């Protein structure tokens, strides 16, 4: 590798690989903070990815594509909300259903879009700053969604811990009966958080099909939705650590890709296992501390709230 340029390319690639994970995980974090476990991230991401791609092909507008991704994924999240919040279904089963449905639906819609090239989301460049060695491309030459993911992480952190709205969300997630007794609309608040999670998953999916690899491939998320779920646990439900975890995983992905590119004498199949194995490893490392998990996990996560009782 040639000094700064090689390192900068590596860091840029790492951040790009991390961004969809960060977006999806931040959305799921808010959902979980309100006490709802949505295992359908993978399905929502796929529907978001295909909606973004189809819109980009049809209209040529990337802004519309991003909007379409968010709306489509929010519709999926809304479906999850109706089932788990209004009809009080099991959250684990419903989340799995959402993923199975999303995989099928996205493949069904995407059938006509396989192999079509589009002009993907390009990077912004700020004259002067972007040309600086190392920091230029890494800090000032990314695409807009990378900056959006950072802003969203900061925003979510601020709202959750520094505003009244965030306090209410956390209260609903920690003790829904108490929040209900004080007079907060538990179900309504949870709907909003679930929808926010959907919108973020949609953005994450759109990032994959518009920016990361500008094309549509069936099942192109390849488990990233599940890795995002694991990241939330890894981060012990803290937005800043979600970002950190996402960059760590971006790093693993990129190291693996570079090792393949440099002709390392290991099968690409074996190297591709790395992100999944790394996910298991970090889950084990974090989860083994039961006290830490119990202190940080929202106490009502996955529990059905029945207002009559």
């Amino acid at each position, binding site marked *: 590798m040639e000094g700064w340029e090689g390192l900068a390319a590596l860091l840029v690639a790492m951040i790009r690989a991390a961004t969809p994970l960060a977006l999806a995980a931040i959305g799921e974090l808010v959902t979980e903070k309100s006490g709802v476990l949505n295992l359908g991230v993978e399905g929502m991401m796929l529907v978001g990815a295909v909606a973004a791609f189809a819109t980009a092909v049809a209209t040529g507008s990337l802004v519309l594509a991003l909007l379409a991704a968010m709306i489509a994924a929010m519709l999926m999240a809304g479906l999850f909300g109706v089932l788990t919040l209004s009809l009080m279904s099991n959250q684990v089963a419903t989340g799995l259903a959402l993923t199975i449905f999303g995989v099928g639906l996205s493949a069904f819609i995407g059938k006509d879009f396989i192999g079509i090239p589009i002009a993907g989301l390009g990077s912004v460049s700020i004259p002067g700053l972007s040309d600086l060695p190392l920091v230029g491309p890494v800090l000032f030459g990314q695409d807009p969604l990378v900056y959006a993911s950072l802003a969203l992480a900061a925003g979510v952190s601020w709202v959750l811990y520094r505003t009244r709205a965030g306090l209410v969300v956390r209260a609903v997630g920690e003790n829904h009966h108490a929040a209900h007794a004080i007079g907060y609309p538990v179900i309504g608040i949870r709907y909003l958080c679930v929808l926010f999670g959907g919108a973020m998953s949609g953005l994450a999916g759109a990032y994959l099909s518009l920016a990361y690899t500008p094309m549509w491939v069936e099942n192109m998320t390849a488990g990233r939705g599940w890795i995002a779920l694991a990241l939330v646990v890894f981060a012990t439900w803290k937005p800043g650590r979600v970002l950190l975890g996402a960059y760590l995983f971006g790093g693993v992905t990129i190291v693996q890709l570079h090792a393949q590119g440099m002709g390392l004498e290991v099968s690409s199949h074996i190297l591709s296992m790395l992100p999944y194995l790394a996910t298991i490893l970090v889950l084990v490392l974090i989860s083994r501390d039961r006290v830490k998990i119990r202190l940080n996990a929202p106490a009502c996560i996955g529990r059905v709230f029945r207002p009559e*009782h």
Partner: protein
Amino acid sequence: MWLRLEPRPERSRVMVYLTPLVAAGLTAVAGLILFAALGHDPGHALYVFFVAPLTSSFGLSELFVKATPLVLCALGLAVGFRGNVWNIGAEGQLILGAIFAGGLALWAGDADLPWLLPAMVGAGMLGGMAWAAIPALLRTRFNANEILVSLMLTYVAGLLLGYLVHGPWRDPGGFNFPESALFGDSALLPALVEGTRLHVGALFALAAVGAVWVLLMHSFIGFQVKVIGMAPRAGGYAGFSQARVVWLGLLSGGALAGLAGMVEVSGPIGQLHPQISPGYGFTAIIVAFLGRLHPLGILLAGLFMALTYLGGDTLQIELGLPRAVTGVFQGLILFFLLASDVLIHYRLRLGPVRVPTAPPGSRPQAQPAQSGE
């Protein structure tokens, strides 16, 4: 007028059996709407999807061929789900079963070994169990979430199979295709009906229905699974071990999914290649829920879900619709089932929300009952 939910005094047993049928009916209605929206004659399309595959003896035999792995995987999952052990990595366990059994078959080659098939059954189950033992160990030892671990391992299993058939196990005479050599005759499951792909594996599935029925309904450990699943604390007070239920749930899931993998490669496929399963392990999750986590229900649900695979094929051939329509239907039916399950605990009432007539003090009986006494 408002449609609203009113709690039932106790769960409705009728609805437990009725809602899967309601879900299937609603899925058919959704299908009508979907086909009409796509510009096809909805009645005809629905006929092509749900009925046409059953009108030939070939179609019927294929139904059983596809139902076999679904029923096997779902039976194992049901043991776990009943105990709140969420093994969703049956697909990976199936792949490992196929790798273990297939490895044995490739090692044997064309040799005529009478014990080969039984050994492959054992190897397949062992492979699935080994893969399922990882989430079991990590859950019981390190408290790691079995949903995420078993799912991550599914991706690893797929890559492992890809590595094997691209690398060490590739057929040297196979024109560089990523697939293994064809298994020898003694590694193939005999056909049940000559001229069809229906093979002995279907009998394995039936035997597994019986075995899981005994395990869940007529054994002490099955009772423990149920108690831990419904009320973990009560189970704890009774001295039942949560860890044992986790191990049992995951190992039975792994064993049966591994058997399904063996049945697939030794039955209809006859070799190893990267796409040995069109997601049977995931569809089995739907089968388990649709079958109410009951062995007989799973048998019926397995046949129904197998129909969605066949229906997807016939739709593609006759109307040129993408096969992915199968996945859409499978997702829809689980949604409708979960949605209509609300009727087990609630009934639908028409009318405005009634203001409780009783004085407020007498209403919240459930609240103190939870904390007090």
